[in-house]
């Protein structure tokens, strides 16, 4: 009797094990299309570019081993360092004002006094879904070098000589940063808005009863409660701005000048204009390392913040 039950149980468990196995096989098969496609179009190119960074290759001829030479070449190239400098400066110029404006916009959109809030929300989000190429073309008309360009004709009203934006150290950066600002400000506004709506109204009511002013509410309730959202936007902005590419490419109409060349534009020029795939891959790896550093910083800071919050609670 006992043995019978055991036997029964044993059989059952064996059967359910194989059932589990079958289920998991089915599960893996279900998710496999993504992984197969990712392996072919994502993972393989990534690994291949690590490999390629140690070779000379023009895409058609033989690949020849080049050791760390590709890295030496780019590290000795002033344009490479300039491209890193440009990336950071344009990133800061495009991101910092953007986050501040996005915060203020979100605050305005969240306030109860504003009418047609939904219309405004959609309008502000529109640039994000606009084709980046269209944006860049529009902005290259705004920041046209000639005196009839929008910005130049405005400056002309005050007797300022037309600025040659594509060849001016700050003109090029301002134009590119403006594109990034315009395109991403709506996205970040929506994130901040979502954050603000998740803050309980009770807190504000309690503060009001205690006699807190509007700016005190903003400083002691809204800002601290938004911390995770701010962190998210800051780090997404950082990683995004390290990868700025389309804006300078279209702004310069293909001729990537040092005034606005970014790291990704620099490696694009090597790979797809000159077919120097080795140094382009080496640049990609340096960029990978830089992004890794920022991501680790991101993790550390978020973890510490999370812990701090838990202790307080």
């Amino acid at each position, binding site marked *: 009797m006992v043995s019978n039950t055991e036997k029964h149980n044993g059989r059952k468990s064996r059967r359910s094990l194989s*059932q589990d196995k079958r289920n998991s096989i089915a599960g893996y*098969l279900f998710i496999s299309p993504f992984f197969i496609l990712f392996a072919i179009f994502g993972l393989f190119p990534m690994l291949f570019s690590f490999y390629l960074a140690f070779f*000379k290759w023009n*895409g058609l*001829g033989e690949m020849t081993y080049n050791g760390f030479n590709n890295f030496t070449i780019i590290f000795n190239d002033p344009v490479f360092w300039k491209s890193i400098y440009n990336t950071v400066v344009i990133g800061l110029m495009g991101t910092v004002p953007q986050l501040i404006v996005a915060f203020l916009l979100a605050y305005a959109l969240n306030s109860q006094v504003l009418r047609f809030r939904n219309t405004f929300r959609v309008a502000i989000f529109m640039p994000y879904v606009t084709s980046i190429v269209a944006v860049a073309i529009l902005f290259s008309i705004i920041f046209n070098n000639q005196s009839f360009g929008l910005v130049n004709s405005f400056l002309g009203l005050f007797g300022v000589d037309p600025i040659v934006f594509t060849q001016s150290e700050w003109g090029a950066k301002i134009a590119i940063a403006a594109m990034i600002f315009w395109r991403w400000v709506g996205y970040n506004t929506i994130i901040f808005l979502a954050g603000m709506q998740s803050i309980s109204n009770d807190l504000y009511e309690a503060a009001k009863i205690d006699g807190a002013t509007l700016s005190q509410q903003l400083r002691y309730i809204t800002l601290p409660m938004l911390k995770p959202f701010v962190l998210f936007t800051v780090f997404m902005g950082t990683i995004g701005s390290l990868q700025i590419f389309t804006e300078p490419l279209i702004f310069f*109409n293909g001729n990537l000048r040092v005034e606005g060349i970014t790291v990704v534009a620099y490696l694009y020029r090597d790979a797809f204009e000159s077919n120097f795939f080795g140094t382009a891959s080496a640049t990609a790896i340096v960029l990978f390392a830089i992004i890794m550093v920022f991501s680790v910083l991101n993790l550390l800071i978020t973890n510490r913040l999370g812990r701090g919050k838990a202790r307080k609670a």
Partner: protein
Amino acid sequence: MKKVLKAGLVAGGVLALLAGCSGDEGENGNSGDGGSGGGNGTIDMWVFGTTGYEKLADAYMEENPDVEINIQTTEMGDHHNNLFTALSAGQGAPDIAMIEVGEIERYREAQDRFVNLYDLGAEDAQGNYLDWVWNVGGSADGEFQFGLPTDIGPTAMYYRKDVVEEAGYPTDPAELAAEVDTWDKYATFAKEIVDATGKPVVDNAELIFNAKRDQATEHYFNRENELIVEENAEIREAYDYTVDLIQADAVGNMPLWTPEWGQGMAEGSYATLLGPAWMQGVVKGNAPDSEDWMITTMPEGAGNWGGSYLTISEESEMQEEAYAFIEWLVSPENQLESFKDMGLFPSTPSVYEEEEFVNYTDEYFGGINTAAVFAEAAEQVNDVYKGRNYLLVQGEIMTALDNVLSSGGDPDQEWEDAMERIEQRLERE
């Protein structure tokens, strides 16, 4: 039991899907091979731009019913990228691919992926074409022929009658060409244009530099593919000549293809445009109502900008059939057809003697025979080897000239900087 059945069915479905995918890939590969492999007798041909070759291909297929030609037209940039990828991967290239003259340099590395047209009898066709055109489509040592030339873009001097007249120069093409027949005289002409009209003599630095550069016997690399730009006095002279014009305020700041460039064409904001034959269409498009544009020969010779080659890929299994077709397609008779149909300027000088060519006139350009002007130019173009990093060097020199033009850079310093950047970038090769 039901569950197992379901899981089994689903798993089977996924497997079938995957198998379907890979099966498809296999089939595509096969049909690709078949296309170029000739299993079904189809010749695949990739072209860009508006060639009108479909019409000619139809005529060819009517005469040769056993040949099927499938022409695919793609935008120029995509076309060359697709071809590059196919050649790099070693599979998927069409039987016949058109390659633009500026792009052909970077395919030199992949000589083994093309058929040497000399092996298919190209020697017999060689005499039909201008020597310089033929040589650009060959290897540096001339042993290997990549392609048969299609059209070309010999350059001449477009000019505005109204602007030239204001400065007291003749508006008749022959008279103006006689008066401005050297670059020294062109510089004087430039100064007088600026003094009389306040307008620049050329639209931008690029075209005047290119015009001078194209008259040099060697450019940036020699046939051993060594960088010679720094020692090449002819190129430095072209640079200095451009700088002198810039400093005399005779060079406009209207970069090619920008809206202001097209507008300048319509308004006549500069005196001359040193452009190729196909620029006629661009001028007409930008200044449809203008009656002032004229064409004459450029001082001291001519250059070439544009044109293409028809190549046959090594992986093609219909090489002989493909060659027979392209030899026919770009023969003098059919180049005359393409000229009449699409305005493609012939690379075969015998066409220049044809009646339809000799009697050609263009009402837009004052009823003159524009074709004759460009035919004369075509025979003056220098046979120059460009080399695979040609565009890199050209780009850096343009940057230097841009800096002199717009930011008041010191010309000698800019030249030095450009040379340094060129060397830095060429280390990567």
